[in-house]
């Protein structure tokens, strides 16, 4: 009696399971072509994945949009997967090499800002489109200025702490995003700058520093990043170092330039306190003052 019950329950359960699978499969194949294409069948197991259609991928009137083909456009033919969900997998992005993932996306997303993707640092370091972009959500975090930096920080740990330094850009507030300065899809500038070089990128917001001026400061014209760390510092004005140490990295120790940093309140402390060397050399980025005045060369007027 007990033995019958012991064998009977699993048998019954197995039979019910097979029946359920059969009914499910049958119902799956009973869907219309549109329902299969748009993923209604897929939604039975991957409901949230269909959020993809809330965005531009799901615009039916655009013949280029994936919804015109359906989930299969990126994930391949689902027929075998529908017959045997556990054994026959469609294209699973989490299991694919980066190059293969990117090949899927680049079927449609080529050119424009991605022209320099091939050979870019991200491409050469196996970064996949899906490493940064979420497709199956209504709101891709990396395309939102407020949440974009978190995506970047999943790899760039140094910058995660730097943007919280007292001297910083308003990245935390979502007013400036990493992509305001960098093109993660590749560029011809160093560090994937959005413009062709560091200075031209900085000038998009700080054009007053461009000049050229009557009196120019050589490192200013060469590269803003020689003196500034745009990701954040503890020094005023995003400076890499505090005055006078920063200035002493280039300038000869003649005259007052070798002054020892101090807080004594004497005249020599003026190179350390307040604006440091810029207490006198106020126009450190260059001045357009043409005055024929003694010592005008030193950015003081």
């Amino acid at each position, binding site marked *: 009696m007990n033995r019958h019950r012991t064998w009977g329950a699993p048998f019954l359960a197995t039979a019910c399971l097979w029946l359920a699978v059969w009914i499910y499969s049958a119902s799956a194949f009973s869907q219309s072509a549109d329902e299969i294409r748009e993923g209604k069948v897929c939604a039975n197991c991957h409901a949230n994945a*269909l959020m993809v259609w809330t965005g531009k991928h799901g615009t039916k009137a655009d013949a280029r949009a994936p919804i015109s083909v359906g989930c299969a456009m990126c994930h391949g033919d689902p027929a075998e997967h529908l017959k045997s969900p556990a054994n026959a997998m469609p294209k699973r992005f989490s299991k694919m090499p980066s190059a293969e993932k990117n090949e899927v996306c680049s079927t449609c997303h080529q050119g*424009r800002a991605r022209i320099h993707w*091939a050979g870019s640092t991200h491409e050469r370091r196996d970064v996949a489109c899906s490493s940064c972009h979420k497709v199956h959500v209504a709101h891709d975090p990396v395309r939102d200025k407020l949440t974009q930096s978190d995506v970047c920080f999943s790899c760039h740990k140094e910058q995660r702490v730097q943007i919280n330094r007292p001297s910083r850009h308003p990245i935390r507030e979502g007013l400036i995003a990493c992509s305001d300065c960098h093109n993660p899809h590749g560029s*011809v500038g160093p560090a994937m700058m959005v413009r062709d070089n560091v200075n031209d990128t900085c000038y998009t917001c700080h054009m007053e520093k461009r000049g050229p001026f009557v009196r120019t400061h050589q490192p200013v014209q060469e590269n803003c990043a020689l003196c500034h760390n745009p990701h954040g510092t503890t020094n005023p004005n995003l400076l890499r170092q505090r005055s006078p140490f920063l200035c002493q990295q280039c300038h000869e120790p003649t005259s007052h330039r070798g002054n020892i940093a101090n807080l004594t309140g004497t005249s020599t402390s003026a190179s350390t*306190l307040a604006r440091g060397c810029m207490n006198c050399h106020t126009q450190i980025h260059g001045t357009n003052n043409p*005055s024929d005045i003694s010592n005008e060369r030193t950015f003081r007027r």
Partner: protein
Amino acid sequence: MNTRKAFTKTGMAAALLAALAPADAAEMLAPYGQLNTAASEASAGLGYADNDGRRFGQYNGISRDGFYGLLDFSLVKRDDETGTWLGGFGRNVGLYNRQLRFEHTRQGDWGYFVEYNRIPRLEPYSILTGVSGIGSNNLTMPAPPTSPPSADLKTVRDNIGLGFDKILFGNWDLQVRFRNEEKDGTRVFARGTTGAGPVGSFGQFEFTPEPINSTTRQLDVKINYTGTDLQLAGGYYGTMYNNQYNGLNIAGGLAGLSTFTPLALPPDNHSHQLYLSGSYGFTPTTRGNFKVAYAQAKQDDAFVTGVNVPLSPGIGNNLMGKVDTKLAQAGIVSTPIPKLTLSANLRYEDRDDKTPVLLYLTPALTTTDGANEPRSIRTTTAKAEASYALPQYFRLTGGVDYEEKKRNTSPVRIVSFRETTDETSYRVELRRMMSETLTGALSYVHSERGGSPWVLTTVTGGAVGSNLIAPIHLADRDRDKVRLSVNWTPVDPLTFGFYVDAARDDYSTRDGSTIGPMKGKYRNYSLDAAYSFTDQWQATAWYTWNETKADQTTCVGASSTGVCGVPTYSSTISNRSDSVGFGLRGKPSAALQLGADLSYTDIKDDYEQATLTGAAIDSVPAITTRLTRLNLFAKYALQKNSGIRLDYVFDRYSTNDWTWSTWVYADGSRLREDPNQKVNFFGVSYYYKWQ
């Protein structure tokens, strides 16, 4: 991976403002029919800050205690028949850093948008000053008052962006972007010279806030061609900067500074660039890309004038500044056999400063010949890389990078110079991808920088000056960099990430000199962890230790011919920080969501100075800065499409920074900062969603 990482945002604004941002529509499992339509959402509420917090409010405007309006919306409507989108977006509409955007697009055909963004920057220091006329370009210095009144300085950028896209025909499309930014306000500025100031001040330094009233415009018009093998993008990029003021006039003040008026302010300038870039797939396994561009920048703003601006004869009324920049780049990536990938890139940029060289200053001084000094620079970079796939998903990559910079200089100079520097970097990397449990990379880069013979500092008349320092960006340098990243998933819901970045610089001094930049060091260690307790509860944690360090030496009072005085001393400047963060997201019931983020950073800046020869000297006191932020939120759905949200933010900033703590200008002005700032912010808002 990103799902978990997305919880790591620990900034104050992230929690406060994301709270009011459009909710992720994937939060609730919606029936199939509802998934096809994008959702709109709006929220409105009230926030309260219990204290003044200049650091807290520097970029969001919440710098004073009191109530603040919280208003956000995201409206999106798609017409499925035509594929037309209509969108409206507003963030922080009730705050000082509001962002608004309207867009209208027919997908696959045309689209346009209009956006408005405000970026404020409130001066984090409280300012006590008797200077009058602040905000204008006419300032008047006070007689030093005993109790100067306070002034709040800030700058505000209001920018309007316009965009238009149109698919023209075939694979061609047009893209137009325009941005106009008005920047207004006042920033900290001063004038100064050597000599003693009034008793109680630090010398002849006067507080002269700079008026900001400028317009920046950018226009980018681009034609794109997007074919299967060939993609092109060509167009025009123009910029313009217009400053309302070209000089700052100052009345009164110390006799020693009486000629320091007007102070020149940034001049108007503009640039125009034509460019063409492209990418071409030669074969399925070989792709190349390129860019060529030509830009011309001009600065011909009228010189500032005044009795203190005597002009040399023949210089005209503006600089006639002109800089031409030519750019050419070409790159190729090829996979000749499945396991091997080769890439190469060549880039050339010539910044040619064609500004006329004129005699602006009577060459009475020894450190200038009186002429202006145009700066030209030509940069050539080349990269080559080979990458080979090994068994077990390993990949070995090796590469060589080369960069050469050629610069010009003037006949008379006070800083040593090198016309050419070149740097070669050798790198190797071992990477493992595609593993279920363990991925990562280990890379090493060694760089060597050298250059042409030093061009000595020279005074008027040709005599050689002091030549002790090799400027840090020109000096011979060996650099070693190591990077390690490991991502480990020991069990499915638990993930660890371990990251190491380390670099070491070794600078060479000038022949016969023992001073200048010596060494640099950088280290960053980071450990991240993420754990999913259930589908409803996830937690993240991270810790980062970071250090930068520079060793340099100099001396006091070197002679004009470069004989060091005493003492000769070293400076070791270091910055170390410990940062830790925790995040928690939970959904205890279908209607309730909870979240918490905590971050803490302890930063220490050391300025050690030690005598090498001569009398002992003191170091400058270290500066310690601590930042704590706690963000909590609870979101409760009253109905399926509406609910309330509660937010709490705790922000603490503490420092012993001495930069301004004792400083007094000759006019009595001073900048001060509350060394302990603590703000509690509470927010409550109601949200509503619809489709």
